[in-house]
């Protein structure tokens, strides 16, 4: 070690050269600094939730992480001019090369059942040409729950355009292009707002950089004042800050060389390093001046290093231990911060010893500016405070002890109040522009977060799988986090309604295969089905809930999914068990869709109707026959026949018991082929209408019994009465299905869940590292254990403070305990070391007084400096950083409090109880 110190003093220029070179190199890399605060990147990619979430992007083009929402606010959207403008803006965005898809009011699909058939058309098929038409459109859309309040604002003034980008697109550039196109097209007075995960991340990045640029000089200024007070010379003021700044530059530079990005919390790094690392420079310079005063410039650097290298190293190691413990956290911002901060402390230590040593060797002071003599400070406020403290500790032990216990208990009482919260509002603060942006979209268009249910099966076209999707969707709709479902199954429900007149999933796969053509036509649906057609996603809007509500809803949703049948087989209704299984399914579904009768009653009614053939519902009633002819209207008119006359023919055929074809041949003189053809068509229509009548009879009976109407959505369950097969759970069944929930709110919940466990893990590790280093330094298990007490109390009470002040546990506050342990343990080390040194030659009272007045003074000044620097973060625009800085500073001051009071009492007690020699000395001194 001695050789190293001498080498530094003899070869200052290579060291300074390397320092300058590395600094320039890392400064050059600073231009690459980028921030990425996407919550889906908080957890490692191999985390099951994250890897599943990421896998969806590869499977479903509709699952677009690369996307942006454009909101346009008009005085009134429903004018021909503004709707035309909206259409043109959407088309112009779509023509951008990076844009994969655009969904706007003007091109959203809707299924419309017409008198003749089905239309899959755009909601705004033809743009209104007059204000009256625009008003009519407005009234029509007001009734559309999926559009009004979601795509269009409740006041009809604003609307959104959803834009998705190709995977290969540079998202930030693509968003910029979209914004440019929109702003070029819309006139002044139309408010344009863009929203998306990338916009939030970019905005956070800009803010974080602004923070670094603004807060670092302010923290430097605060430290300058403190250092000026301590040194009263330029070198003493400037150099510790320069060292700390260089440590920050080196750290950021290394991170950039490693290709890492920063999160918002990393923006606090330079300020924190300024506070923590400047102390090393202060130690070196302080000691240098002492050595210079003692023996002049001869080997002053070597002597200085001999005195400070180990203390600085030990201090750095304990601080690094605290930070490195954060590496055990599987939450990226936390582990990254731990790594960067530990690196910064290491660089600070190296710079404060090697580089400062080299600098003083190359540029020795010409005239020593004496450090303010400690004796001269004896009458200042600090001295008086410490004197009062030592007096109280020595003469009012019980009072102090009671005070300590009461304060500790009071603070710890806040611990149960701690909660986890990772919302944008909590991170950025209520007044932050990002929070306001999020609030704007939430208030005007509902939530902007989505949850997804991924359905995996062998065959997506299987009626059982599609029906399960409908059932699950219906169940989940009760939760705030699963609103406004959008799925393949709901699209097929609409299509079947247009084809057959009822909103149900048919039990014949052939029908679903026919409907699949419309699915193939829909870009929106294709984006939600995997290439192999074995997986699909159901999309839900996630309403605003607390983390606790989200967790509860998720648990219930997962429990429901866990209880759904996963492997079934299709069986014909020719056995009692099969019929029972169908009855049970229909009863369960009717109750799920709103039937409020007792299950037994519903079961009786369902069993009764299941036994009735559809032929029982064929009548000769004119209204029934009118429904039949209306069902066959296309074919009747195609043959040039009159609907009413055909209806009369039908009535005669039923009355006479002859075939429709025969009756048509007689009444209209059709050739036999044409008559047979239309007869078959009418027979099919008759069956369809009779089946519908059967279900309506069931509906009427249920409605009458329960005294309230059943909504259209109940069609799904009611029409199962027409099923000719049942699905029964069977381990050998050939129909399998599996479900999994994901989405940004789910990831957020996962992060929340991990925060507590990671907090505990990193804290235990920090304690272990620090305790090991204490053992090394104090060489005694008892002494090391005593030295740990103040930091244990500090950590415990810091959680209490978080609870009392409603500071939630999040990625920033999670780190405070580990930082407190790493940085705060220094105080215990220095205090204990001085105590044991003093107690070797003095009485307990003298030793305590000396320790408090000398080492205590250093600790207090250092803590005030560090806390002052950390409190600067309270000036940040980002709420999370404000809280983080304030909490770090408060906790460090708490550390000083417990070191001065709890450790003093314990050391004194140890001396009082244990060591006979020390006791004798104390008695003799009295």
């Amino acid at each position: 070690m001695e050789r190293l110190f001498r080498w530094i003093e003899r070869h200052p220029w290579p060291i300074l050269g390397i320092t300058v070179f590395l600094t320039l190199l890392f400064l050059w890399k600073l231009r690459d600094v980028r921030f990425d605060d996407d919550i889906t990147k908080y957890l490692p990619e191999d985390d099951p939730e994250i890897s599943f979430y990421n896998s969806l992007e590869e499977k479903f083009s509709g699952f677009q992480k690369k996307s942006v929402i454009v909101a346009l606010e008009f005085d009134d959207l429903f004018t021909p001019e503004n709707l035309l403008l909206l259409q043109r803006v959407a088309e112009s965005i779509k023509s951008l090369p990076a844009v994969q898809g655009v969904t706007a009011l003007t091109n959203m699909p809707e299924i419309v059942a017409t008198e003749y058939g089905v239309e899959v058309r755009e909601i705004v098929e033809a743009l209104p040409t007059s204000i009256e038409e625009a008003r009519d459109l407005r009234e029509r859309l007001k009734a559309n729950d999926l559009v009004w309040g979601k795509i269009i604002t409740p006041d009809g003034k604003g609307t959104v355009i959803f834009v998705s980008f190709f995977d290969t697109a540079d998202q930030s550039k693509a968003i910029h292009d979209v914004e440019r196109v929109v702003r070029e097209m819309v006139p002044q007075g139309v408010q344009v707002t863009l929203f998306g995960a990338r916009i939030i991340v970019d905005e956070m990045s800009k803010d974080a950089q602004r923070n670094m640029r603004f807060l670092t000089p302010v923290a430097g200024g605060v430290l300058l004042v403190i250092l000026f007070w301590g040194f009263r010379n330029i070198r003493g003021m400037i150099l510790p800050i320069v060292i700390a700044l260089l440590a920050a530059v080196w750290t950021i530079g290394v991170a950039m060389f490693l290709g890492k990005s920063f999160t918002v919390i990393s923006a606090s790094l330079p300020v924190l390093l300024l506070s923590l690392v400047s102390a090393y420079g202060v130690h070196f310079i302080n000691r240098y001046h002492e050595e210079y005063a003692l023996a002049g410039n001869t080997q002053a650097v070597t002597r200085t290093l001999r005195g400070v290298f180990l203390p600085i190293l030990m201090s750095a190691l304990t601080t690094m231990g605290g930070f490195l413990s954060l590496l055990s956290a599987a939450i990226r911002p936390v582990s990254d911060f731990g790594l960067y901060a530990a690196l910064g402390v290491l660089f600070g230590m190296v710079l404060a010893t090697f580089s400062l040593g080299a600098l003083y060797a190359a540029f020795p002071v010409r005239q020593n500016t004496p450090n303010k003599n400690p004796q001269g400070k004896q009458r200042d406020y600090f001295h008086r405070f410490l004197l009062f403290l030592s007096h109280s500790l020595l003469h009012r032990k019980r009072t102090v002890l009671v005070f300590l216990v009461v304060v500790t208990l009071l603070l710890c009482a806040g611990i149960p109040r701690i909660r986890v919260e990772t919302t944008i509002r909590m991170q950025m603060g209520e007044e932050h522009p990002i929070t306001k942006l999020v609030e704007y979209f939430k208030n005007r268009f509902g939530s902007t977060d989505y949850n997804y249910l991924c359905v995996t099966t062998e065959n997506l076209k299987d009626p059982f799988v599609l029906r399960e999707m409908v059932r699950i969707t219906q169940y989940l709709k009760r939760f705030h986090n699963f609103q406004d479902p959008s799925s393949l199954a709901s699209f097929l429900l609409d299509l079947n309604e247009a084809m057959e007149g009822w909103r149900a999933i048919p039990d014949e796969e052939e029908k679903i295969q026919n409907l699949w053509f419309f699915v193939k036509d829909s870009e929106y649906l294709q984006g939600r089905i995997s290439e192999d057609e074995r997986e699909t996603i159901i999309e839900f809007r996630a309403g605003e809930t607390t983390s606790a509500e989200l967790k509860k809803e998720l648990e219930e949703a997962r429990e429901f999914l866990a209880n759904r049948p996963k492997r079934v087989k299709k069986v014909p209704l020719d056995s009692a068990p099969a019929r029972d299984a169908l009855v049970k399914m229909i009863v369960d579904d009717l109750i799920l869709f709103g039937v409020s009768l007792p299950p037994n009653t519903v079961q009786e009614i369902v069993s009764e109707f299941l036994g009735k053939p559809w032929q029982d519902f064929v009548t000769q009633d004119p209204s029934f026959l009118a429904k039949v002819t209306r069902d066959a209207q296309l074919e009747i008119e195609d043959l040039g026949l009159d609907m009413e006359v055909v209806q009369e023919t039908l009535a005669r055929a039923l009355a006479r018991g002859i075939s429709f074809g025969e009756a048509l041949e007689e009444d209209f003189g059709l050739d036999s082929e044409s008559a047979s053809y239309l007869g078959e068509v009418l027979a099919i229509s008759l069956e369809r209408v009779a089946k519908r009548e059967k279900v309506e009879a069931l509906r009427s009976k249920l409605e009458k019994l329960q005294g309230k109407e059943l909504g259209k959505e109940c069609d799904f369950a009611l029409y199962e009465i027409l099923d000719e097969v049942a699905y029964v759970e069977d381990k050998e069944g050939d129909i399998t299905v599996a479900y999994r929930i994901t989405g940004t709110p789910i990831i957020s919940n996962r992060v929340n869940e991990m925060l507590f466990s990671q907090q505990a893990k990193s804290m235990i590790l920090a304690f272990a590292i620090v305790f090991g280093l204490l053992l090394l330094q104090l060489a005694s298990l008892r002494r090391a254990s005593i030295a740990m007490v103040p930091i244990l109390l500090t950590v415990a009470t810091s959680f209490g403070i978080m609870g009392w002040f409603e500071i939630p546990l999040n990625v920033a506050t999670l780190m405070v305990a580990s930082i407190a342990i790493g940085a705060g343990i220094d105080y215990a080390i220095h205090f204990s070391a001085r105590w044991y040194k003093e107690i070797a030659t003095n009485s307990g009272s003298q030793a305590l007084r000396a320790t408090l007045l000398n080492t205590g003074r250093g600790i207090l000044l250092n803590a005030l400096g560090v806390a002052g620097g950390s409190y600067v973060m309270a000036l940040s625009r980002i709420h999370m950083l404000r809280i983080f800085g304030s909490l770090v500073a408060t906790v460090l001051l708490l550390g000083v409090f417990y070191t001065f009071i709890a450790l003093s009492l314990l050391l004194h007690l140890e001396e009082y109880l244990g060591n006979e020699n020390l006791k004798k000395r104390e008695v003799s001194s009295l």
Partner: protein
Amino acid sequence: MKRFLLVCLLFVFLLGGRNVFALTAQEILDEVEARRTQFTTQKTVGKIILIDASGKEETREMVMYLKDEGDDKTSVIFRFLSPADVKGVTLLSLRNGEKIYLYMPAYKKVRLIAGSSKSEKFMGTDFSYDDLSAGYGKEDYESALQGEDEANYYLELTPKKSDSKYGRLIMVVDKEKFYFKKIEFFDASGNLWKVLEVHEIREKEDGSIQILKLSLKDVKENHATIMEASSIEEDIPLPEDFFSVRTIQRPTL
């Protein structure tokens, strides 16, 4: 579903024409356009192959009947023959889609349907309505002859409309038979987007060209669609009421 019809229109559009000796870009395009077969009725049997990003192929066999209704109007019946899950699904388009009917065999029902966005892809293929319906005439494109070699002309077409999805097209036209062998579609930023290639043709006795096989690859999404006609019959006798709702309900056309 209207998109079935668009597939038909593509085949119609791609049928051949006659020889000329034009050399300017516009004259070359006019000649390509002029080589359309004249017919009253036509029956085409063929298949559509969809190839996804992973290379998985899906083949659909189809039969298509067309009738020239005059006034540049065409009626079409399009039916899928395979695979089993789509077999029998039939589309009837009357007079360029004035009315479009769909027969779904599982429902035993004909329904009138409406169309969809012109710029969207149809039936999971890589063609959009615009790709199929648009000619490459002077109304829509500025054309320039970029060069030529022994076998081909190389034309650059620039859309006149500012809202076109494409920035430019590079078309390779066969010098002898005047059909385009290849078209490269570039987006507004100049990146290659789609490549259309003609793989197989038949030259009729009158010199007109029938394209039997072509492919369109979406380079951005790595999808491809191949269309292949195995037989084309023209001027076949069809009953007067063939293009009707009743016909498309028959098991055999």
